[in-house]
């Protein structure tokens, strides 16, 4: 995957010990070789400086758009303490996944910056540690869902090239849950593997062993028996009508 290459990108030597280094452009970091301030030699870490920058070109109308969704309704409460990033499960694995920064960019409507993170933004595992620890109940975990909506609206070509897998799997879930009312796990597994282009793995030893085991103890047949709830059609139609009428970010896409 293209993504892996990006994660393994060699860290710029310049300012590499800065936390959230990825948020700062290379030419904004200045490192003096041997710096003496007021007669004190401040070599080493202390000789790194980050040049200040001014963001003035942003669009606040965007803020309203996020606030109107169910998942992003608390974006105005965030005061950027960074507790979400500090407690995040994903950040240690992917340094560029930084919920605090994402929320900041969303508050400012800074689409130019957000675009750089399309490839990691979907990696949230939904563990809700951030929402648990957030002192302002911003609910960053759900804010990441709002971010996904936003990315879908403003960067469709990026989604097509980088997030295809995530979007396809999400679509399978949605079709199955809205259409049938229940989740067929076997079907979900098989169709998502197909969508990801990994059909070959389905006939690997591990998968075959698992399938054989489930056929043997009868669980494979219980999957087939999982029927639709009675009268599900009524709920399905009502939900589809609702989705037609609401004006969330994703609805205004087209």
């Amino acid at each position, binding site marked *: 995957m293209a993504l892996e290459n990006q994660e393994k990108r060699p860290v710029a030597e310049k300012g590499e010990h800065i936390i959230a280094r990825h948020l700062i452009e290379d030419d904004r970091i200045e490192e003096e070789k041997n710096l003496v301030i007021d007669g004190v030699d401040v070599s080493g870490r202390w000789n790194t400086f980050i040049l200040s920058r001014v963001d003035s070109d942003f669009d606040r109308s965007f803020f309203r758009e996020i606030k109107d969704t169910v998942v992003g309704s608390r974006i105005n409460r965030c005061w950027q303490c960074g507790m979400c990033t500090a407690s995040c*499960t994903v950040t240690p*694995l992917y340094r560029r996944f930084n919920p605090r920064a994402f929320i900041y960019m969303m508050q400012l409507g800074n689409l130019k910056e957000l675009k750089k993170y399309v490839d990691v933004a979907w990696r949230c595992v939904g563990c809700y540690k951030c929402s648990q620890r957030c002192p302002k109940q911003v609910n960053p975990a759900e804010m990441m869902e709002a971010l996904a909506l936003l990315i879908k609206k403003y960067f469709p070509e990026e989604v097509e090239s980088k997030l295809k897998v995530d979007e396809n799997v999400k679509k399978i879930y949605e079709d199955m849950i809205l259409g049938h009312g229940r989740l067929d796990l076997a079907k979900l597994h098989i169709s998502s593997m197909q969508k990801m282009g990994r059909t070959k793995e389905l006939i690997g030893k591990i998968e075959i062993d698992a399938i054989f085991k489930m056929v043997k103890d009868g669980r494979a047949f219980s999957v087939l028996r999982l029927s639709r709830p009675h009268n599900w059609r009524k709920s399905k139609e*009502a939900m589809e009508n*609702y989705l037609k009428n609401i004006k969330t970010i994703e609805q205004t896409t087209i």
Partner: protein
Amino acid sequence: MDKLKENQAAYYPGCALLTIDRAYNNSSKLVSKKMGIELVELQDYNCCGIGEMKSVGAVSMYLPLRNMMLAKSRLGSKDLVMACSVCYHEFSRSITRVRENKNELAEVNAIFKEAGEIEGEFIPDGEARHILEFLYNEKGVDEVKKNTVKPLKGLKAAPYYGCLYSRPSMYTFTDKKPNLDNSERPRFMHDFLEAMGAEVVFYGNEVQCCGGRNVVQDEETSFKLCSQTLSKAKKAGADFLVLICPKCAGALDVNQPKIVEKFGKDSELPVVYLTQLMALAFGFSKKEAEFSDMISDPLRVLKEKGF
């Protein structure tokens, strides 16, 4: 369907428990019955949305709340007991949201009205209850001690709570209601295991995430998180990792052969559900507790320990 009698509780099975994770479903029912509460399955239930439907507005709340309505109209029960942590999260999220936000309640009720399937408006007066919390509060540790006929002496168990059983307290009200667990250091499973005579192992990843939410889309992340948890528990000397969520089982048990293939034997550890161990301690056979359903092969260790 008849209304509930005394000592019965409305039970929402969810999709995984009726099919692949039947071991958890059946053992939960066995254990509850032994402790004096019969779980009555809700018919015609629908999927709760398993965290994939949050971005579609009020639909994400309609899905779980339809089940609450069904439970009330058919079984006459305000509360609904469930064994899956993800379902528990989706239910408590929806109930809390419509309770705190009149607009969202109105939106959900509009969908209910249009569907016209169940009469009346939704009133958020019931609670979603996780089976662990339910048994702990309704029956308590003493009842577990009383029912234990075959103490789990010599078994070292590593309790794994996962994310959504105790988090976030803005939805589950852990820390806020005195009878609920602690959100950062849950202890109900510890208490149950100790009451059954097992030795509880502390390993530091009790409330870490298994990456189960993205287990389909993002195996890479999930495998890393799972191997951390499994190897930490193994290093601490655990014989089992004890779960209370079928989605965690999907990541830690079903995918374990793949994790071992990638990260080595350090991540090889049998995984069981809490209710399976409880069934074993309450005198049910290994077959009744359906240990053979688990892919990580807990039977081998049980045999070694003389069970």
